[in-house]
């Protein structure tokens, strides 16, 4: 027991992120309603973004905006910047693009769902399959 506790304390947040990912994956596979599947897809995407952003964190570091840089417009070379003082900005940049793409995908998917409802008058997947084979 005493050797498991340091492992849990060090890695518990990764475990919670993986639980969130699996909730999203379960909703995508097993739900019948199309909009519930979309919610599952979005939960999956945001939990992966959360995991990715968390690997850029550094303890005792501040947000990635350089301090005292605004007024010194004549001497930017005199600032001594240590890389360990600022949080890694690279995962933030990649995940910003991921959030933008995720909202664009969500909008198009909702447009498709509205179009499907207009045609088949239902959003449940098994009823749509039945009405497709009847035609």
């Amino acid at each position, binding site marked *: 027991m005493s050797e498991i506790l340091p492992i849990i304390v060090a890695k518990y947040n990764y475990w919670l992120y993986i*639980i969130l990912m699996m909730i999203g994956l379960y909703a995508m596979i097993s739900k019948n309603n199309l*909009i519930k599947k979309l*919610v599952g897809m979005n939960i999956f995407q945001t939990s992966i973004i959360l995991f990715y952003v*968390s690997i850029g964190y550094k303890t005792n570091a501040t947000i990635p905006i350089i301090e005292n840089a605004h007024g010194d417009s004549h001497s930017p070379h005199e600032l001594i910047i240590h890389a360990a003082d600022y949080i890694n900005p690279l*995962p933030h940049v990649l995940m*910003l693009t991921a*959030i933008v793409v995720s*909202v664009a995908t969500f909008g198009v998917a909702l447009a498709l769902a509205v179009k499907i409802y207009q045609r088949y008058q239902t959003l449940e997947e098994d009823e749509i399959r039945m009405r497709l084979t009847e035609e």
Partner: protein
Amino acid sequence: MHWQIDLIILTFTIFCALAAISVKDLLSTAILFGAYSFMMCLLWAVMGAVDVAFTEASVGAGVSTVFFVAAVFRTSRRTKD
């Protein structure tokens, strides 16, 4: 950064995600989904990713919820599962 804040907000996030996929009314799903997005934004702000938190607040808890409610308005509100 305190691990207590992190743990509490993460627990709320998991509860919101579980609730959003289990309720039978799609308008409640939309609101719970907005709450889940807002919890994510808080997590990122606590971790120091301020740009990502700003984007998620404006996109997830703003525009995405409005799209969802608009789509539920034009389709049905009840669901069987």
